[in-house]
């Protein structure tokens, strides 16, 4: 690309990145406030971390679409640091951990957490979830209590529920109600697919509703807010005050070991959380870029230092806002910068208004976040992968809760190693081979890479394999051969799985061979990973649907397959799926020549708390002749908004009504105009609205982002068939 071209693409991307930065700041604001309060730090410190992160990481970082801000993992450490050393010493610890991060980055050790067993990391994250949930649950129900540790907090939950049900104080009653309502918003938000509702992230709905409720009482009813003053966010100083009252970090404890334990814990969890986020976000990046992790860690270290001096918390790459960023069209670092910019504006203009938000409402967001980290789903998944993984997970979880984060991680590492030794009944296998360069990679011919792994492959020596995989351009084909390997652990399998996804996305592939020798390991995590537990109720429903589909297929003389199918490469070419991850298709009806494929599909958008699992029914039709790439959908406010951010709506001259009702977009307007003849336009006008998309080789048609009823299925099929006939005539 020429320089001028680069500049023009960057300029073009500004509006949509500003827009997505705005949406991100809407989710970042309540999260930052809440996380800071969960740490027992001033609420503004979370926002400062977001601003410092957004401003510096967007300039010096090595990632593209990640958003930086205060992480949830830090709650576990900062909470302890604040209670044992005081706030100002904690700022000093934050600054020191920023320096450590910076050093890690320069030593190219940013990927530190790649070398921890993944079940242990899951255990630590679950423990953090419980720490957040345990403490904040009580505040959510307006029953602030002080306990010794997380276990006691968790044990006290039933008691708090009983107390909350019997409040006589109206102030407390309303406070608890605000908490419960907010939790309901968080839980049910992802279940409702409404585009206007989804434009504002759930946490911001909590804030908007709280604010409007407060204004309603003050200005319409002329009454004071019925929620108890004790359970409102403490007054946030205005911008002048924030600047004049900058805290002075207290380095007095720098000689003590407790100080450094906190620093190391902060650094460790910051590096782990950031790496996990960057990895997950890279997989969602529509432009399929590879983030420079070490550069990003350096930038995160820098912004952590800045944030510490300004009275803010640690800065990490945060996953939920990042995925919101991608879903809203963020494509480069401008969105991260603009999120910091909008946050600054919010604080300058509205900082004093934020005290209208009830504390329980804010804490409900955190309770939901905590629950997501430690939900029974996580435990069930661990169990499906293997009992030994569950043991590792639980050991890490309990040690983290009882002793601390660092001990937790290392007990997880030790447990994993001991279990590996026990499974293989051999210490020698690991001891003798750990330092050997056990991975061989060579280019078989001009296209294929061959990788052979010897001895054993586990979290202990995964770096060898990882270094080789990193050095292969992702558009190539790779064969990984484990036949000379005596043992492969879950961490390696999981990582290979994510590499496979990455290569697939960029047009390459990774094939894994040579597990025939490892027959005794039949309960291998990989084979069991695909199990999808179905509860009784849904099962019955599914049976009826199955019958409906079967009879429909018989009627049309088509084939019906009910099983889940994860091989859906052909769908990836559609624009609609660029920011989404396809899970699997099922209930498939296909014509004998496999021209028509109708199926239910499960896919997801975003990750972490912004993750939304969607099921829908779609029709896939192979084009009989070449058709230009285009997207046609119902025109609404959102599409008009998108056209401001750079996505052009193609108007067809002479058909104003059609152009007004439909949003048409594509790379080659000329060819599209040729395709949309009068007959086709009339056809669209006389039928229901469908989302119709062409990728050049095939069409994807669906009506709503939910499972279609059997009636709608028939309609969809009819529509698709007539459309296909019509278009092949042209």
């Amino acid at each position, binding site marked *: 690309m020429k320089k001028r071209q680069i500049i023009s693409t960057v300029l073009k991307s500004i509006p949509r990145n500003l827009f997505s930065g705005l949406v991100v700041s809407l989710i970042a604001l309540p999260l930052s406030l809440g996380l800071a309060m969960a740490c027992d730090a001033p609420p503004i410190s979370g926002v400062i971390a977001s601003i410092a992160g957004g401003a510096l990481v967007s300039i010096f970082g090595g990632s593209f679409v990640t958003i930086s801000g205060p992480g949830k993992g830090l709650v576990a450490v900062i909470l302890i640091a604040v209670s044992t050393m005081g706030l100002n010493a904690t700022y000093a610890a934050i600054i020191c951990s920023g320096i450590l991060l910076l050093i890690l980055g320069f030593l190219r050790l940013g990927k530190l957490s790649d070398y921890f067993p993944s079940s242990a990391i899951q255990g630590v994250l679950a423990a953090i979830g419980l720490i957040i949930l345990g403490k904040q649950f009580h505040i959510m129900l307006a029953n602030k209590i002080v306990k010794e540790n997380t276990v006691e907090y968790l044990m006290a939950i039933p008691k708090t529920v009983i107390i909350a049900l019997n409040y006589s104080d109206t102030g407390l009653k309303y406070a608890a109600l605000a908490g419960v309502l907010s939790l309901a918003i968080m839980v049910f938000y992802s279940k409702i697919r409404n585009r206007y509702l989804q434009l504002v992230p759930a946490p911001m709905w909590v804030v908007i509703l709280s604010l409007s409720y407060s204004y309603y009482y003050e200005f319409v009813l002329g009454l004071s807010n019925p929620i108890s003053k004790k359970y409102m966010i403490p007054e946030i100083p205005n911008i002048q005050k924030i600047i004049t009252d900058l805290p002075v970090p207290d380095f007095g404890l720098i000689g003590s070991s407790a100080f450094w334990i906190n620093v190391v814990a902060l650094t460790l969890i910051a590096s782990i959380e950031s790496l996990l986020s960057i990895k997950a976000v890279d997989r969602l990046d529509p432009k399929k870029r590879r983030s*420079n*992790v*070490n*550069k990003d860690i350096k930038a995160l270290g820098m912004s952590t230092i800045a944030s510490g001096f300004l009275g803010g918390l640690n800065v990490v790459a945060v996953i939920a806002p990042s995925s919101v960023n991608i879903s809203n069209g963020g494509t480069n670092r401008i969105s991260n910068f603009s999120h910091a910019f909008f946050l600054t504006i919010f604080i300058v203009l509205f900082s004093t208004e934020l005290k209208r938000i009830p504390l329980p409402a804010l804490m409900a967001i955190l309770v939901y976040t905590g629950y997501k980290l430690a939900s029974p789903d996580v435990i069930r998944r661990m169990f499906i992968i293997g009992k030994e993984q569950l043991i590792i997970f639980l050991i890490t979880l309990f040690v983290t809760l009882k002793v601390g984060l660092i001990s937790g991680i290392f007990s997880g590492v030790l447990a994993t190693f001991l279990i590996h030794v026990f499974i293989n009944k051999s210490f020698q296998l690991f001891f003798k081979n750990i330092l*050997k360069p056990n991975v*061989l990679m060579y280019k078989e011919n001009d296209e294929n890479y*061959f990788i052979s792994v010897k001895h054993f492959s586990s979290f202990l020596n995964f770096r060898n394999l990882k270094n080789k995989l990193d*050095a292969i*351009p992702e558009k190539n084909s790779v064969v990984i051969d484990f036949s*000379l390997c005596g043992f492969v652990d879950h961490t390696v399998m999981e990582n290979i799985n994510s590499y496979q996804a990455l290569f697939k996305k960029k047009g390459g592939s990774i094939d894994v061979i040579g597990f025939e020798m490892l027959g005794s390991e039949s309960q291998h995590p990989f084979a069991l990973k695909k199990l999808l537990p179905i509860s009784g109720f849904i099962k019955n429903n599914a049976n009826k649907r199955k019958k409906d589909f079967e009879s429909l297929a018989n009627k049309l003389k088509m084939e019906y397959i009910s099983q889940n199918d994860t091989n859906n490469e052909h769908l990836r070419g559609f624009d609609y799926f660029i920011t989404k991850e396809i899970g699997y298709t099922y209930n498939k009806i296909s014509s004998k020549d496999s021209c028509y494929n109708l199926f239910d599909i499960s896919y997801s958008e975003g990750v972490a708390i912004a993750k939304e699992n969607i099921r829908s029914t779609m029709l896939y039709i192979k084009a009989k002749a070449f058709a230009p790439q285009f997207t046609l959908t119902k025109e609404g406010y959102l599409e008009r908004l998108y056209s401001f951010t750079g996505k052009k709506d193609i108007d067809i001259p002479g058909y104003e009504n059609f152009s007004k009702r439909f949003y048409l977009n594509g790379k080659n307007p000329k060819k599209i105009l040729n395709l949309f003849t009068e007959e086709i336009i009339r056809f669209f006008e006389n039928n229901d609205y469908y989302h119709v998309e062409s990728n050049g080789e095939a069409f994807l048609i669906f009506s709503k982002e939910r499972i279609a009823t059997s009636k709608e299925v028939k309609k969809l099929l009819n529509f698709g068939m007539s459309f296909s006939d019509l278009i092949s005539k042209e």
Partner: protein
Amino acid sequence: MKLNRIGVGVAFSPNLKANIYEAARLSLFMESELMLIHVGEEDAKKTQIISGHLNEFKKQKLSYKIIFVNGRPVEAILNAIRESKINLMVLGALKQESFFKYYLGSIAREITRKAKCSVLLLINPSIKRIPCKHIVVNGLKDPKTEETIKSAFFIGKKLSASKITIVEEVAQEEISIKVDDDRSLRESTIIRERLRLREKQRVKKLIKSVPKDQLEGVNINSQPIFGQRGYSIGHYAQVVRADLLVMNAPSKVSFWDKLFPNDIEYILEDLPTDVLIIR
């Protein structure tokens, strides 16, 4: 390369017959004299057993000599090699119990390190001949390499091997760029390609020094590999199921090499296939 005398250590182990058969067959192929070295007192009964195993080869006019030496096994054998002017010493490896892994016993290991002649390490000596089809030879950038490659072709011709692969191990450090993101990946891929071409060119030149008649009927390949020197070639030979791996002798073996294995030590620890070390 001329192999006048081939030596084999004779110990009365279960592998005795197989070891003798392999060495005798090789001597016939190479038209060399076989020297059977036994550490211990000279004894008519022992001589009888040993020459009994050679009956089949006597018909094919194998010339051989049985030598009895005394003292510590390693020194005694090294002395015999020097005194009898042996060019190639044949040693048998041991098989690790559970896995299909082979390693050298401590005596064979020391002889391999200290001997002044070439050494052939056999992982699976067999009484019936297993044809040697594929030979892998190192193409390191080293003054000794030319001689090694010549030897590989010479032996390949004698054993009528059908395929010879020359492996150039390129140290990872030669790629000056560490892969961090898309851009550094692109750059390192370009450097890698350039190095591959350079290595292939170099090997082409080396092959030119091999006599023409030895090149006939052999499928010659060259395979650059980026990785730990000395290790990758063994791993590669194992992956492609080569029948013989031909290597340069190590330049020097210091105390550190035994602690942190490099070059030949990786191979001695875990024999991938039959290995011939050229001196």
